[in-house]
């Protein structure tokens, strides 16, 4: 379990792709990918739109605000889904909160 400081970071911090990860459009397929040393992660459009926001300048509220204009999903559901997605990437060492 993340300790309190990790928890507050996730609530109030700004998510940012790790230095070792890079978001990119695959020139061959035209689809978005997340690249790191050990993997090529194929992203869907939603994944790409979330990660585009994770440049360390926006907090979670601002990210949900930006995505909310594009998706009709309820904000609480959207927040939960985005949080889970970012948490998974954090576990793989590809994203952190600053």
């Amino acid at each position, binding site marked *: 379990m993340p300790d309190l400081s990790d928890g507050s970071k996730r609530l109030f911090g700004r998510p940012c792709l790790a*230095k*070792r990860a890079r978001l*990119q459009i695959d020139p*061959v*397929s035209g689809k978005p990918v997340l*690249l790191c*040393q*050990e993997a090529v992660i194929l992203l869907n459009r939603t994944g790409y739109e979330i990660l585009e926001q994770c440049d360390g300048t926006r907090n979670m509220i601002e990210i949900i605000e930006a995505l909310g204009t594009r998706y009709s999903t309820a904000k609480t559901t959207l927040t939960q889904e985005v949080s889970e997605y970012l948490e998974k990437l954090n*576990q793989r*060492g590809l994203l952190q909160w600053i």
Partner: protein
Amino acid sequence: MDLTHRPYGLLAELTYRCPLHCPYCSNSVRWEKPFELNTLEWKKTIQEASKLGVLQVGFSGGEPLLRNDLEQLVQVAREAGLYTNLITSGVGLTENRAARLLESGLDNVQVSFQAAEPDLADRIAGVSNAHKLKLRAAEIVNRVGLALSLNVVLHRFNIDSLSEIIAFAEELGATRLELANTQYYGWAYRNRSMLIPTRAQVETAARIASDARHRLAGKMKVLYVLPDYFANRPKPCMNGWGQRYFTVNPSGFVLPCPTAWEIPGLRFDTVRERSLAWIWKMSESFSRFRGTEWMPDPCRSCPQKEIDFGGCRCQAALLTGDPSNTDPACEFSPHHRLVREAVDRRADQPAMDSFIYRQNPNSPAESTRCNG
């Protein structure tokens, strides 16, 4: 092009020259005098790789920092949209150079360490003071703001200090730690009886690595590469022959795996004579073990054949003399006893001064002794 049948990764072996002499180096023991590709040839190779679908390039060697055109090659790769990783001993990295590499678009630096303890590390590398230079390199990588990852090859002489190695990587601020059990090809095969650990050592190490992976999730990615000599099933080598990756060696030969040069009877093509696209799609070497058609039994009738692809062709060739045999690491291989015996018959009291140290191409000495 079909997404499932394109290469994703290029390992660019820029030179075989190396300041280290690690006795487990996977570089070929049969290399001929390399006539290294020049800057233009590498640039063209990288651009062709990108057109073929490659998304990641690892600059390796030998020691890639010995090429003074490294920054140019990183830049070309980055301009082509590739993820760029530098696989280095760290020896020779200056702050100036690291800053230039960052500016050229380098994404990640992987520094190899031989152990956490300096004297042991230098004895394994066969060079005095190497560990200190590596520490300095790791600090430089952090200071200029590049992502740092560490690679430690595990064997009988350092596997017992795995906890110290993990703590050491944490302290250095690595974002990723690759703990790779020795694979017995190249120089490692020559030193196999001394390098091979005991089953108990391997099991303890696996537990320690697994604990660390959970404990450090989100802070440092810990990757533990299982030793196939201690497994019942072979590793899915390269994710299948000619499926995802290829290597270009210093002389421009294109190999389905970094150690494929060792396979007798296989003819390889070079980027000096053919396009990468032709080599990937049409060459005899890449077609030879692609897919499952080439497989003999027990692989042919095995439900695992699409999972492990029959294991490693280089290992089959090295241990049985025939690259189309089932990898002897598989318990169903008729040659499986060769792997079991290698574990059972390891040296009783191995001493590091009897290592056959890796030599550089054209080196007159049969073996380089540790001067540390």
